[in-house]
């Protein structure tokens, strides 16, 4: 049995001066012979998760097991072996080596696994024939269409017949005819004992999947009355990386809005006082909170749904909210009243 099991996975890394945690406590099981689609918008951690599954990125916490291999316990040499023999990767934008022919690109993992040249060539020819490119073997990537390049990339990924295939946005950069070819090919891969994991934001692929994992779950916002929250000094209102449906207006006290730094500390983005509002971008765009809000003093805030906040702001669209227009009759933070 070569099931894929992910348990309490956390990936956190420095991006520029801030720390980001694209994956926070993810657990997932994918049975052998099935195709799982990781669905979500850009930046939700799809590629990060694929990098972890491919043994390219080490998670900060949690476990990844494929069959009897615990990836989180492998050293650098074992990871290289794992990448070579257990995983096949179809990269976004194909990532074929431009100076090599289609045949030579497919031969790369075979030669890396020390398959003799002649045998590697025979196997690569067989694979390219299988993906319908027998007539394009001697062509370089620049002479192939996007769909053909992606098929070469698929042939390269399955060259060593790995039990786990990872595909990152396999339909990006393809027109609808090319997408059709690639979808069929990817579905065929998930057979026997093989596990295929596809990361995409392309919902057209969903019918292919045996399992769909939404990495950024859609929160069904419900309208509710404004919610008054009272906080003690030092108490946290919400944390960076969490989802939420409220935009908060400060009634009393002061709250600091901070972002985690790569160095381990925090950067204070702003201190919000009475009349200020914050936390509008997450609910409006369905994004995780980009900062943590903590009470500096005892404080009272009122949480509004997006719709309720629009009405309070007196605006009909999201533009005024995104531009952080001041609440009517209240001074803009750090600005003179209009």
């Amino acid at each position, binding site marked *: 049995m070569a099931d894929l099991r992910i348990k309490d996975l956390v990936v956190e890394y420095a991006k520029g001066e801030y720390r980001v945690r694209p994956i926070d406590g993810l657990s997932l099981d994918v049975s052998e012979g099935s195709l799982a689609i990781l669905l979500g918008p850009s930046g939700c951690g799809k*590629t990060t998760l*694929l*990098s972890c599954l*491919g043994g*390219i*990125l080490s998670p900060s916490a949690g476990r990844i097991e494929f069959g009897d291999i615990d990836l989180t316990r492998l050293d650098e040499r074992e990871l*290289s*072996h*794992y*990448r*070579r*023999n257990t995983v*096949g*990767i179809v*990269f*976004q*934008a194909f*990532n074929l*080596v*431009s*100076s*090599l022919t289609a045949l*030579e690109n497919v*031969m*790369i*993992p075979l*030669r*890396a*696994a020390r398959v003799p040249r002649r045998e590697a060539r025979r196997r690569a020819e067989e694979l390219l024939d299988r993906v319908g490119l027998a007539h394009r073997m001697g062509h370089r990537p620049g002479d192939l269409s996007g769909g053909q390049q992606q098929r070469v990339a698929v042939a*390269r990924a399955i060259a060593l017949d790995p039990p786990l295939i990872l595909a*990152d*946005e396999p339909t*990006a*950069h393809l027109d609808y005819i090319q997408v059709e070819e690639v979808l069929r090919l990817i579905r065929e891969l998930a057979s026997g004992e093989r596990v295929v994991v596809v990361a995409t934001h392309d919902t057209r692929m969903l019918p292919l999947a045996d399992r769909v994992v939404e990495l950024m779950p859609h929160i069904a916002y419900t309208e509710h009355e404004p919610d008054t929250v009272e906080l003690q000094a030092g108490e946290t209102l919400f944390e960076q990386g969490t989802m939420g449906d409220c935009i908060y207006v400060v009634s009393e006290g002061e709250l600091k809005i901070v972002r985690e730094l790569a160095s381990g500390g925090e950067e204070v983005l702003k201190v919000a006082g009475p009349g200020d509002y914050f936390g509008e971008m997450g609910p409006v765009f369905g994004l995780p909170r980009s900062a943590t809000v903590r009470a500096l003093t005892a404080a009272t805030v009122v949480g509004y749904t997006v719709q309720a906040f629009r009405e309070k702001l007196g605006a009909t669209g999201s533009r005024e909210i995104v531009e952080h227009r001041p609440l009517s009759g209240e001074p803009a933070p750090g600005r003179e009243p209009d």
Partner: protein
Amino acid sequence: MLIAALRDLQWRKRRFVIAIVGTGLVFAMTLVLTGLANGFGVEANRTVDTLGLQTYLVKTGAPGPFLGSSPFPPTEVQQVSRLPGVQVAVPLVYGSATMPDRGSARNVNVFGAPERGPGMPVMSGGRPPSAPDEVAVSSTMRKAVGDRIEIGSRTLNIVGIVHDSTALAGQPNIFLTVAGAQQLLFSGQQLISSIGVRGVPAQPPNGYRVVDRAGAVEDLSRALNGARQAMTLMAGLLWVVAALIVGSMIYVSALERTRDFAVFKAVGVPTRSILGGLATQAVIVALLAALLGAGLSVLLGPLFPMRVDIPRLAFISLPVLAVGIGLLASVAGLRRAVTVDPALAFGGP
């Protein structure tokens, strides 16, 4: 990943060809400079060897029998010839003179030696000079037996040709009788520069010291020591230039292939294979440049007005050094390849 390295060479062939030509020219210049520096020693050795003498007696304090000589009367020649260990002793005259040459002046090295004694080289044509107004000249002067040359206020008849006899960076040697050289260099005074000896005197007379063959060669090329050092330094700098050309090309190649390296690593290609490919490229470029440089140096050598005598060892060691330079030069590129994160392969276009 030899195939990837070779295909990349083909893929970026224009750049590699430019690097090979550039490095090849640098290697050619290095070889030519080495040949020039070596030529100084070669012609000094050949000149000394053609004299057929083993040792020289010079006045104590004089650095040598040629450039460093201090003229003295030939009164001791007979005494020296009777010293234990001496087979033959002859008076030798050496000096420099200027002769007109196609509208300009040309320096020549003047040697005076007995017609039949040691000190007079073997003629490749004609006969040795036997009278003060007769001269044997180097074949490099492109004169023939029967021609006349003017040196100073004297006109000399060419009676013999000595094959390819030069010293001091291609200056031709001319050979006269002792009396002829004395008239030319010392206004006829009975002075000599050294006593040439076949054999090794056990004890030189008072006021004299013995100079061996190596000392004589050193004395004949001493004036060029500065030039030789400068050329050696230049050759060393050119090795550095060659390394920089190869190194920068490999480094740029490594920068451009970052995504390829990331893909290689992501599909499990060991980092050492990637490094091997890059190093192979550097070695191929350096070796082809060495081959081109060797060929160019052979073509360019004769264009120089001085003797370019590239030692065979230089041709043999050039590819070895070139490989060393190629590997050394590719270190920056190799370091770059090592640090490439395979996660880059997941990036978009």
